[in-house]
């Protein structure tokens, strides 16, 4: 039969006249034809009794399924051309998936030839793709409307290469900037940046793509660069013909940086003092940053963020442990505990959760797989959950890795403590392994990726120690990067990689040089979070205005200007206390406890805080904290009891101002400073003075004015 081969297949398919193999020749066809896709036979339960691995991640399984399932009915050994695996996709027999390729197509011929020549699986040592190469490492287009084909070459384990452009899958993460058709031709649509994901046989490569602004007349106007953050942002902006915005005003800056660092806006007194402070903006702002970071409220604010991530909630921990875990977080932040140390303490925690609150970390998940998923998502920014059932479709993570990484946590045991509500974390001597769900094999722990200096994994004992050492190593390419990216997002509303806990090749950073530099600096400074925060907030980029110019108005990803961010639930509640001068009165905590000092979502449940998106801490995803806007929120702001009670507080700001005998202008200024952290404009003064004089009750009018201010964007957003 072999002499027929040249008649049936194109020469390109017969490299070196080697027999075709499933691994090298057939699998790409099946994948490209869509047979292994999620909606078809790659679905969890397959389709119509035929199951293939999702996107062909498990060639051995697929080979077995095609040749031997249904007693081999899919392969007609006597007459390969009548095999079901050919009759179905060509619709010779009815096929729910429709026509996948024609009988005279190249794909048909490849499969037929493979069947005729013995249907060999292939040798993984030779036929596996080890690397992909694309025609360009970066695509740069001067204007929209351009077209270019991207060519893909596969490198195999035996050193051979093959042009696989036809079978490779190329997708754009922003199709309205650049589209890629089935023939791998890129067509640019509008200015901006996108990433192309090129996939072939489990390997992938990401290629950045830029389409420049076609508008003529751009001239780069250099702005002061406060630190390397500005240098690296400017470098990219200049290349993209984007002119960054100038600095925000001092008042805008102080409100922004106060909300971002200590969770509350400045009081009128603090704001006046800052505005009156002499010196250049950069110096006085740096001083203000240092002062804010020394405040107890700095610790409160960041405790909320870590409480969210670590899911500190009495729902899982009981109330005493929740307070204890909060104190542990507070101590870590207040002492600026090096981040790697903090994570090591969490990951290797043992003993009573009351005595060692770090052990509460494991009390939330309670089993190895969930512990692994949370650890990788929070500390590595990697989502492993897909790999529980199959190899990750767009990533390098395999199902084996999912269970190998889970195995590090297999020995974590919990038993009740000696005090009610406490639990003791210990290492189990029984029931301390993780098995692969398909093979039933015991999975030995393995690091997600090899990194320099990773410690050997011990056979027994606490293998979390080794994991913690590997995970927090400065050589781990994810660990430092993930937290740097996450921290960045707290100051700009989005990460350099976004979402922040989904770091993968197909989701590249918008400014890799920036992320790399910040990460390097963070590691070199001993995983110093305070230094990282200072570096970011001292940059001009952070201090930039939200006002855009004609060259950056459409830029929302390169940090050329700041973006307004809705205050978080706690910020909003505490800002309301400051604006109205009312005192916090939450149940079950001492009076004057601010919203950001609450230990968990139990307190004030179903109230104002939850309405404005306070997370219930049911997941470690940043996405659980909602910053959207909704009708119930609007109604609450307009007509809710929380606002009305705060504004009408008999010991609040308005009552004090009125009884102190201030003038209208003083009253107005005070209300503006408290609510919006700025003095009113002349027009606003005039409107407000007129308004105050209209009614019988000056106090009632002042209340209405304050109500209007707290309902304005200036109050609701961090600008």
């Amino acid at each position, binding site marked *: 039969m072999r002499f027929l081969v040249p008649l049936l297949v194109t020469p390109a398919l017969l490299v070196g006249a080697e027999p075709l193999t499933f691994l090298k020749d057939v699998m790409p066809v099946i994948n490209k034809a869509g047979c292994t896709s999620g909606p078809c036979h790659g679905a969890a339960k397959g389709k119509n009794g035929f199951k293939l691995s999702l996107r062909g991640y498990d060639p051995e399984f697929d080979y077995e399924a095609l040749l031997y399932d249904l007693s081999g009915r899919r392969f007609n050994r006597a007459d390969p051309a009548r095999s079901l695996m050919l009759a179905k996709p060509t619709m010779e027999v009815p096929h729910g998936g429709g026509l996948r390729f024609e009988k005279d197509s190249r794909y048909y011929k490849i499969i037929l030839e493979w069947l005729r020549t013995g249907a060999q699986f292939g040798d993984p040592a030779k036929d596996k793709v080890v690397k992909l190469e694309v025609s360009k490492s970066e695509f740069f287009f001067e204007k929209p409307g351009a077209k270019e084909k991207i060519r893909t070459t596969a490198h195999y384990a035996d050193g051979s290469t093959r042009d696989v452009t036809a079978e490779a899958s190329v997708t754009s993460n922003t199709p309205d900037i650049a589209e890629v058709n089935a023939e791998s031709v890129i067509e640019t649509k509008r200015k901006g940046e996108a990433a192309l994901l090129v996939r072939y046989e489990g390997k992938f490569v990401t290629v950045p793509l830029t389409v420049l602004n076609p508008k003529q007349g751009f001239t780069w106007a250099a702005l002061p660069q406060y630190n390397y953050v500005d240098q690296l942002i400017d470098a990219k902006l200049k290349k993209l013909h984007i002119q960054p915005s100038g600095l925000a005003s001092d008042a805008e800056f102080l409100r922004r940086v106060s909300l971002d660092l200590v969770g509350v806006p400045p009081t009128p007194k603090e704001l006046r003092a800052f505005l009156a402070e002499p010196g250049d903006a950069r110096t006085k702002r740096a001083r203000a940053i240092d002062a804010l970071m020394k405040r107890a409220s700095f610790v409160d604010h960041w405790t909320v963020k870590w409480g969210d991530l670590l899911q500190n909630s*009495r729902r899982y921990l009981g109330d005493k442990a929740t307070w*204890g875990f909060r104190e542990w977080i507070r101590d870590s932040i*207040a002492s600026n505990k090096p981040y790697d140390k903090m994570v090591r303490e969490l990951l290797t925690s043992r003993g009573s959760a009351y*005595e060692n609150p770090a052990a509460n970390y494991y009390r939330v998940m309670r089993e190895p797989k969930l512990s692994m998923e949370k650890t990788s998502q929070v500390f590595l920014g990697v989502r492993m959950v897909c790999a529980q059932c199959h190899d990750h479709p767009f990533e390098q993570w395999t199902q084996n890795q999912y269970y190998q990484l889970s195995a590090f946590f297999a020995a974590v045991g*919990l*038993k*009740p403590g000696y005090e009610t*509500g406490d639990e003791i974390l210990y290492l189990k*001597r029984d029931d301390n392994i993780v098995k692969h769900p398909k093979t039933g094999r015991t999975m030995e722990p393995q690091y997600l990726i090899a990194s320099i200096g990773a410690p050997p994994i011990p056979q027994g004992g606490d293998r979390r120690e080794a994991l913690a050492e590997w995970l927090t190593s400065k050589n781990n390419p994810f660990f430092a990067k993930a937290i740097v990216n996450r921290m960045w997002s707290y100051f700009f509303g989005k990460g350099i990689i976004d979402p922040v806990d989904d770091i993968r090749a197909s989701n590249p950073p918008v400014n890799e040089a920036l992320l790399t530099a910040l990460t390097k600096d963070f590691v070199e400074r001993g995983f110093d979070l305070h230094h990282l925060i200072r570096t970011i907030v001292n940059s001009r980029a952070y201090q930039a205005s939200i006002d855009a110019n004609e060259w950056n108005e459409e830029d929302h990803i390169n940090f050329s200007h700041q973006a307004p961010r809705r205050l978080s639930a706690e910020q909003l509640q505490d800002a309301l206390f400051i604006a109205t001068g009312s005192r916090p009165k939450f149940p079950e905590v001492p009076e004057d406890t601010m919203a950001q000092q609450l230990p968990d979502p139990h307190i004030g449940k179903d109230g104002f805080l939850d309405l404005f998106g306070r997370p219930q801490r049911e997941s470690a995803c940043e996405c659980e904290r909602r910053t959207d806007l909704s009708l119930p929120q609007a109604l609450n702001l307009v007509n809710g009891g929380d606002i009305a009670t705060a504004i009408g507080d008999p010991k609040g700001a308005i009552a004090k101002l009125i009884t102190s005998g201030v003038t209208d202008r003083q009253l107005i200024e005070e209300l503006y400073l408290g609510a919006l952290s700025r003095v009113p404009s002349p027009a606003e003064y005039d409107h407000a003075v007129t308004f105050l004089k209209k009614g019988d009750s000056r106090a009632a009018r002042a209340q209405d004015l304050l109500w209007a201010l707290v309902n304005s964007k200036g109050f609701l957003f961090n600008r």
Partner: protein
Amino acid sequence: MTRIAILFLASLASAAPPVLTSLEPWGAQRGKALTLTLKGQYLPEGAKIVSTLPAVFTPLASEAAGKTLPYLVEIKPDTPVGLYPVRIQSPGGISNILLFSVGTFPEMKEKEGNDSAETAQKLSQTPLIVNGTLKSADRDFYEVYGKAGEKRVFEIEARRMGSAIDPSLRIYDSAGKLLTRVEDTAGLGVDCRVEFTFPKEGTYKVEVREARFSDQASNFYRLKMGSYAYATAVYPLGWNRLKDVDVELSGGNLPAPVTVKPLDGMVHLPGSTASLPFPFVQSDLPEMLEPVNDARPRYLPANTVMNGRIRKAGEIDRYSFSVQEGKTYLVEAEARAGGVSQLDALLTVYGINGDRIESAGDKPPKQAVNAFIVAGDYSRDPYLVFEAPKGATQVTVAVEDLNGAGGAAHAYRLIAREQKPDFEVSLSTPYVNIPSGGTAIAVVNVERRGYNGDIRLTVKDLPKDIAVAGGTIPAEIPDIDTRQVSRRGVLTLTAKAGAPARTLDLTVIGEAKLEDGTRIERRALGPGMQTNIRGSFGFVDSSRRAIRPFEATWLGLALPAMVGTESNGVLEVKVPGRVRIIQGMRYDFPWTFVSKTPGMQLPSVVTPDTPGGRDLRISDGNKRQPGKGLMTMNTTIGTPTGTFDVILSTRTGMGMNDEVVYAPAITVDVVQGYDVGVPKQDGLKLFGTIRREDGFSAPVTITPDALPLGVVCPSVEVGENGTQYAIECQASKEAPVGEHMILLNAASILPQGEKGKVPYKIAPVEAKLRIGK
């Protein structure tokens, strides 16, 4: 009760049993005189104080009759530092116990208004003890003065004294910077202590708060400040009560270990220290100290307490223990649960080849695995039961810390012995007041150790004018599928009308008969006192969950009791003390409340308690009216046969003035409605009898089953109230000759309850059928 001496006797006035809610103050400096005010309910003037405190109590006039009892108290100067029980005895009965602390420092009271650092209460004196309270989400601030380098111990006594407060202490500098924070301190339970070194001269703020900001009814604390010695480790943890032993105290701020002798179950630091003593276990067994620096294999004799210590992290103490093949043994450790040791003990028994036979201390309760912690759960010290393997003559018992910790405070007591099926009993009722002519209850909990059968509770040497009823703890089924737990029993104690008022020390006994006929008796120890602690919100459904109440078992009390004056009334249940109920049928308990107080509002609700009763429903139906009603117990055909108790009670009065009135327990036997007797045979005719329970008259159908080939035996119906059955079988020629085991299936219907719905079947009866040639 031997620890408690009656110190003062006065005239008796009030009828209701007294209840103590607080003391003011909660402690005093020894050698000083003070006014001690007891607060609570039903505190008649002239009531007796019952306490071990070496002091003279002189009653003073009360400004709030019935609610306060002031005394002038002169505490003897040589009174050992410690906690002393105080209770009241009045005509109505004895009160609960509260603990009074005697120390060496001057005392003062918190001045409210100190809820913030700005309004901190200034304390110029040192040393000092401040008696304070934390109401709900309260924080108390105190301002103290310290010199640079000065060391001072700050300690809070709260839970150890029976306060429900779980205290937390913080120290701030004058700028408000937190310098130290301390919560649960090793060896002090949830109480806390820190030795603080003032970094510079100046004022400091000390904050006391409740760790959960919970709102507790018993919310007092004592903040102790001064330079005093304290230890954190005791070794050994206990000894034979009749033998002499040196006890080593170490750790804390002691420069070197000190050796002392225990005194009345307590170990005191020598000298004039302000430290509360450590409780010391007093046993009746031989005791040994772990051999130190002895290269020989350690041997653990049976029935001997080995006192050991895990001296350093990672250390494992191993002992050889002699066994006999096939016998069952118990190994038990006492460590952290006792409150003094820090050892979270892990016990492992290894065979001669090093194979692990059994372990304890390293397993959570089944319900806690992969589930959220049950709020009421807590760990106890481990014990394990194992069967000696084939051919074994000795095993190795290993003791270590679950997480590999070690140190001077990691002491343990280890005992191993042959284990026959056994159980332990403990009282959860700290004391009882039995109204003259009325009834009180005592609740007993059982810890089963291999014995799952019935347990009978009784009171030893009960006076003739007191009757006991109830006390049935049915057998439990440990099978994982049909697990039925039975670990609680209730005894009712009824005093005859006119029984003279007096105090009693009652001893409650749990009795059981083992399979081999051996009878075992176990004595129940009481909690001494109890403080209920409001639980925690959260845990999945956000409801409040119970927290283990504070108990003071170290008081060594069993069941202090008093026969007091009559109660408001008597709850009468007009049924015999023991009744039989057929499975699936109903039983009515008509009740009447006989008031002894003219004009009182009669109760209309009666509450049932059926400890050990399973698959039944008891309700007060729709015949409820003031002063009388009908409780109805409904069983199903699935209600297991067996014996349990029904305790009915009602509540009279409202709020603080209410009283729970009990009826004597009624013991219920749930029985099968009928039995089918094994038949006799005449030719191919089987005939026998049916034994019917009184009240069961329904027809019974008997259907032979598992018949040999070629044999036909028709079903027969035995008519209403019938007691004889006869089955005419027929055998063909193919029927095998010989004697065959057959089954007689019996079914009926119930005359009430589930009548007509579900066939009432009983277990098949095995019978013999002979086929002749």
